[in-house]
């Protein structure tokens, strides 16, 4: 059992479940208190010790079934055994007795299995052969046949013919009728195909098990790095949760930073007040916060057609940011610019997005005009930008050949803490078409290429923390 459990733990680790050494020890500890025969208890107990995240439960459940139960039904569907072939003078039991007595040692697991139908023994031989063949290295389903063949040969397929000859001789020596011997041999020969299938099945399952992650759990890490342009519908849905989580993480980090960051000067008034209860003895000095680090952000997001595929994520992200940080204001623009801060605050993210794309703030289908948008921003909103404000512009800089008005960016940069441009297009495409990015970029403190969620998170983290 110990060996199996260790192997199972390895399997869980390989599929992305974190298991520490202390948890391994716990797993062994619980074995002493739980009857392994009680499958459900055993499973729940193992899960309680090993799986500490709700998300991992499904992976655990399926792997558990696959590992501890999988082998059994693998062998159970193989109905046709030695008992099903007709023998006359010779009884099946006698034949088995001969096999047990004479050839336990010398023969391969393959023949023994076919004659004795000892499933557990065969299964463990199968596992050993798999380990020897290096099955844990399988990464591609094209390798299944290769490994299956290798394992089959190791189980006894390689010397099958010579073993048959030896077996025939053995039976003949016992004085068994030649016809009956032939019947048994025929059964053995015909059964090899079934065993081959079985081994292949086993390898297939093993492959699935080892690369479980890939099949069952669409890993978040992969989604984080996947380019916005190639997300499927289902992935887009999943993104919503991830965005929410990322923003929550960001908030957490901001809180920790604020609490554990360096403290400022001694706050005399607060100290006196705090220490009144100690009769004026100053036992607990109180320090002021060094910097009140509350990020103030003004985000301006392009919602026109050319960036539609990313702007919805940006807007969702902004929406959650606004929930977490109070001093975030959001604007959207295409032909015109409009503020969506209060829209975000009043509506859940889906409805807010719906309203935006329906055009209840500005017409999102108008042709983008960066020049006009910057001008309007300068006129109406620049007053809200101060030296503690980070301004984030999200857009591809595709200006439909309008006046770029890039000088205005200088004004914004000068009156803000920093001006960051997040661009969903890579640098080489800045040269093409109506992109004005090359003109805008030099006026910003930083220009970041944001093609996936990870980029977005990192960029925003650096701005607000």
């Amino acid at each position: 059992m110990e060996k199996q459990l260790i192997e199972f733990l390895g399997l869980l680790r390989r599929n992305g479940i974190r298991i520490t050494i202390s948890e391994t020890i716990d797993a062994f500890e619980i074995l002493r208190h739980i009857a392994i025969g009680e499958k459900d208890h055993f499973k729940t107990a193992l899960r309680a010790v090993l799986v500490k995240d709700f998300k991992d439960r499904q992976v655990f459940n399926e792997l558990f079934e696959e590992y501890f139960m999988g082998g059994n039904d693998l062998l159970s569907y193989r109905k046709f055994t030695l008992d099903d072939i007709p023998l006359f003078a010779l009884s099946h039991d006698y034949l088995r007795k001969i096999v047990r007595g004479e050839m336990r040692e010398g023969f391969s697991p393959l023949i023994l299995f076919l004659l004795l139908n000892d499933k557990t023994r065969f299964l463990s031989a199968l596992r050993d052969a798999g380990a020897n063949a290096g099955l844990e290295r399988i990464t591609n389903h094209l390798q299944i046949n290769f490994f299956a063949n290798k394992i089959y040969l190791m189980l006894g397929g390689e010397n099958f013919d010579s073993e048959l000859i030896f077996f025939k001789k053995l039976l003949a020596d016992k004085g068994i009728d030649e016809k009956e011997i032939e019947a048994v041999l025929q059964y053995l020969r015909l059964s090899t195909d079934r065993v081959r299938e079985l081994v292949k099945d086993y390898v297939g399952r093993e492959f699935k098990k080892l690369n479980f992650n890939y099949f069952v759990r669409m890993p978040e890490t992969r989604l984080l790095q996947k380019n916005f342009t190639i997300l499927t519908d289902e992935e887009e849905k999943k993104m919503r949760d991830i965005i929410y989580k990322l923003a929550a993480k960001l908030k957490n980090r901001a809180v920790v930073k604020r609490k554990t960051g360096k403290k400022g000067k001694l706050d005399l008034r607060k100290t006196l007040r705090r220490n009144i209860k100690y009769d004026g003895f100053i036992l607990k000095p109180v320090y002021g916060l060094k910097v009140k680090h509350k990020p103030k952000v003004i985000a301006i997001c392009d919602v026109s057609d050319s960036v539609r595929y990313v702007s919805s994520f940006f807007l969702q992200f902004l929406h959650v940011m606004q929930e977490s940080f109070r001093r975030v204001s959001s604007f959207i623009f295409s032909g015109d610019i409009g503020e969506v801060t209060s829209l975000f605050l009043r509506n859940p993210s889906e409805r807010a997005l719906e309203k935006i794309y329906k055009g209840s703030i500005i017409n999102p289908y108008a042709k983008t005009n960066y020049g006009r948008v910057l001008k309007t921003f300068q006129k109406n909103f620049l007053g809200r930008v101060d030296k503690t404000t980070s301004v984030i512009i999200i857009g591809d800089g595709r200006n439909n050949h309008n006046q770029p008005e890039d000088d205005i960016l200088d004004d914004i940069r000068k009156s803000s803490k920093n001006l960051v441009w997040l661009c969903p297009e890579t640098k080489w495409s800045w040269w093409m078409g109506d992109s004005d990015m090359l003109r805008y970029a030099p006026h910003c403190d930083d220009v970041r290429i944001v093609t996936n969620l990870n980029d977005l998170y990192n960029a925003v983290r650096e701005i607000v923390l």
Partner: protein
Amino acid sequence: MFNSINEVNQKFEEKKYICSTEAATVVYLSTKIQKPLLIEGPAGVGKTELGKVLADAQGYPLIRLQCYEGLDEAKSLYEWEYSKQLLYMQILKDNLSEITSGSKSLKEAVEKLNNVEDAFFSEKFLLPRPLLKALINSEPTVLLIDEVDKADPEFEAFLLEILSDFQVTIPELGTYSARNPLQVVLTSNNTRDISDALKRRCLYLYLDFPDQHVEEKIVKSRVPGIYSKLTTDIVEFVNKLRAIDLKKKPSISETLDWARVLLTMNAKSLDEKLVNDTLSVLLKYDEDIKKIREEIKKQTTQREGISFAPEAKKTLVN
């Protein structure tokens, strides 16, 4: 202490807490291998209740620590009673000067005071808060740390020593180990991720909304005297609600409240009016209530009756 998983089930049931086999298994194990138990799940499925019942079923006292943002050591572990210390110092001023009298230098006086320092930093002046209280309790104790996710991340780190070694260190006095077996139950609503270090030290139990028949059992045991058909109706209806996308899904405690309300209204089965009138017990958001009312209306006008409760339809027709 429990001797088997069945015993857990049984004893919990005596205390009117119906739990799944999974919960019973994990509780049994956590008492057996002396590991804290971390319970997660949606609000209102009985996480805190499980902690309470665990104490009750074994006849142990329960010490509860409610977590919130800003909870710190002074409020959770111990505090020096400064005012008492100061008061004693005032009263004992004469004794103190007696001790220091005859010393030739300031240094000597400090040395002498040093020797009696222990008197002031002793357990007499220590104000134990829930965590320390649980550790030094004179009998086996269940410590319930409720909603640990509401506390700050630093507080979690501070819990680690208690959870893994059942001890805390007080700088002036040294290390306190648990005098009696301590069973720790932590609950979390998953508003933020609990750190791996904390999770590693605990057994994990995810409590979800129960199966229909388990919930029926719960209602029957908690709301005695309720008609069994009404129970079925209620649970079925609530389960249907949970399948709908709502802002807040009705939890078990809300099911129980509803059952109690319906019982006092002397209801024997559900019908549209009754549901409409009492829906606010079950749902806590105006939006949700509107949504469900519309849904019910739609279903009744479609001449399907309230599909939630087929029996109710019959009573309506009759």
